[in-house]
């Protein structure tokens, strides 16, 4: 369905516009021969380097990577907005590109007029838009405003209308760039739902998103771009895990200057292993499984009463931790190399990706012997039956799920007394 073969994309770093004067003076100063080689600071910038990707019909592939890694560039090439400098791209089937919702919307025109305009831009025949108008309006929930100029709409309404038009095309290939990051949670859920419908009809999806849970849930495969090159490509869970680890390792350490004064590198982590209840090393855990973190370290000098802290973090922040500052199980003295183990029993985590941050405080409980750093990552598998989540709506709700699951029961009570 989609074939990307060894694609390179170059941008001129020194922007875009050359004025005629520059061209003319360049030509006059060198009337013969080739134009000037690029000067310093105007070197070419390769936004994509040797990227290859095959997507088969009906597959969903997520593209992840830090900002500026070439995700959007790749999507633009797939959409045919821009051409590869080298290599070949072939996309078969009708494309709906949701790279910018409501591209071509005009504020002075009414919602209705904009639906037709936007539809025409996306390549939908007028007759087809007319046929689907009700559906589009219902999805966007802009019914009463349909004949008002777009400038009177809230930004949420504009985005909804844009998505509704784009999603109404029965496209075989859907290209989406951070589309779901706009709009409120309820709208995002409905977008995901609509995408699932399209997928059931056999649509192929390429999704660029910073929301790793969304990629993990929605896509079978993921492509991780790093500075324009392919860092990894494979099953979504694995690629996301690897990307997350990399992203967190390279995250800026807190407060490095003040740390040195307090001796924040007196204890060095040599290696980390995550083990499950059976004692096997793994990065995939199940709900309520045991998690052991084993930290191999070396002390640069004799350390008195160090306090280890292990914190498990996920999407929105810290989730739980073990801290010797709290439980008091500090050793009196550590020296040389060693290993410390902490066993968490029955982690109550929702499906998703998590990471482990370790830090070691000095005897005073304030200064650091080792700054907080990410030492490991793991995922909790998304088998909803483990959780007893059998509702039809469960899959769509996953990206919004709170990370900790406490067992619970619902009960309705008949009111025993009248409220008079």
């Amino acid at each position: 369905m989609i074939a990307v073969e060894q694609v390179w994309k170059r941008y001129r770093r020194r922007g875009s516009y050359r004025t005629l004067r520059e061209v003319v003076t360049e030509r006059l100063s060198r009337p013969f021969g080739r134009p000037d080689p690029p000067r310093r600071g105007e070197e070419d910038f390769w936004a994509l380097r040797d990227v290859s990707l095959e997507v088969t019909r009906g597959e969903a592939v997520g593209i992840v990577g830090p900002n500026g890694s070439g995700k959007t560039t790749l999507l633009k090439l797939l959409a045919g907005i821009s051409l590869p400098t080298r290599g070949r791209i072939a996309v078969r089937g009708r494309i709906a590109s949701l790279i910018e919702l409501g591209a071509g919307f005009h504020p002075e025109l009414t919602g209705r007029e904009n639906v037709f305009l936007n539809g025409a831009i996306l390549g939908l025949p007028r007759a087809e838009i007319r046929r689907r108008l009700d559906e589009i309006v219902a999805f966007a929930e802009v019914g009463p405003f349909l004949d008002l100029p777009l400038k009177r709409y809230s930004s949420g309404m504009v985005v909804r209308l844009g998505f509704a038009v784009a999603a109404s095309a029965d496209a075989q290939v859907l290209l989406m760039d951070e589309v779901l990051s706009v709009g409120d949670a309820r709208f995002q859920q409905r977008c995901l739902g609509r995408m699932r419908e399209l997928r059931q009809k056999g649509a192929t999806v390429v999704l660029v998103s910073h929301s790793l849970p969304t990629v993990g849930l929605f896509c079978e495969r993921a492509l991780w771009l790093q500075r324009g090159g392919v860092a990894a490509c494979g099953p979504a869970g694995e690629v996301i895990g690897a990307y997350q680890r990399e992203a967190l390792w390279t995250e800026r350490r807190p407060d490095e200057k003040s740390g040195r004064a307090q001796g924040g590198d007196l204890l060095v982590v040599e290696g980390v292993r995550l083990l499950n209840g059976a004692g096997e090393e793994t990065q995939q855990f199940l709900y309520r499984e045991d998690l052991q973190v084993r930290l191999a370290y070396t002390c640069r000098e004799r350390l008195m009463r160090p306090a280890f802290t292990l914190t498990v973090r996920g999407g929105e922040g810290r989730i739980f931790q073990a801290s010797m500052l709290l439980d008091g199980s500090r050793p009196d003295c550590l020296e040389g190399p060693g290993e410390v183990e902490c066993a968490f029993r029955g982690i109550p985590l929702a499906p998703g990706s998590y990471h482990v941050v370790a830090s070691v405080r000095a005897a005073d409980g304030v200064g650091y012997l080792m700054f907080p750093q990410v030492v490991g990552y793991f995922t909790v598998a998304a088998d909803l039956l483990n959780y007893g989540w059998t509702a039809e709506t469960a899959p769509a709700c996953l990206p919004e799920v709170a990370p900790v699951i406490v067992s619970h029961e619902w009960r309705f009570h008949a009111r025993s007394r009248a409220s008079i």
Partner: protein
Amino acid sequence: MHGAMRELAQRFADLVAHRELLWTLALREIQVRYRQAILGVAWAILQPVALMTVFTIFFGWFLRVPSEGAPYPIFAYSALLPWLFFAASLSGGVSSLTSNAALVGKVAFPRAVLPLAAMLAAALDFLVGAAAFAVLLAVYGVGPTRQLLYLPLLFLIQVLFTAGLVLFLAALNVAYRDVRHVLPLLTQLWMFATPVIYPLSVVPEPYRFWAWLNPMGGLIDGYRRVVVHGTPPDPAALGLAACISLALLLGAFRYFTRAEGEFADII
């Protein structure tokens, strides 16, 4: 060469497939232009009428520019109408790519649709202005003749010529924004080089040929003959204009399709 022609034909077929988009964008142009304007579409008539009035006062009445026996107002209007269509196509079309940068950068469609839609919008204004002209002609007692059958041909050649120029300049303007600044001056000079204010017959004989090399000159002379004087257009002038227009359009479309792959990157 054969491959290049096939490529060109493919691009043209692409463009034809997007004719609905062309129409919708032209409609947007018109709708947006006259929305929140009290006089609305009347502006399409007011502009040529106002210019005609000014020209009549200064050139017809004060300067006594010869008008080949026709009343100066209709002499001027018959040229102003196609000229304004030409000028409006240029000013709207040349900047159409850069002023729709968001669209060019985010959506894939044949880029030629944008400048052509601007031209189409100008053409709709032209038609409205032409309706007003019919009234003006009736007032002056100039009746229709069989020569009016030449009008579609004249219009077609003008569209070909304008399309070629607009496509070329619009593509050039993406890379070199100077084009937009040169354009108003160029249009102004061009109008004086074209028999809008004066008849082609006042151009001295040795320069007449050069005047014909300007397709707008031959065309406007043709419009004037057909509508005002009821005589057929000069076949040589018309043929020359048609050849130049076709050659320009072909070259411009080729240049445009080669350049358009980079528009999204540099716009």
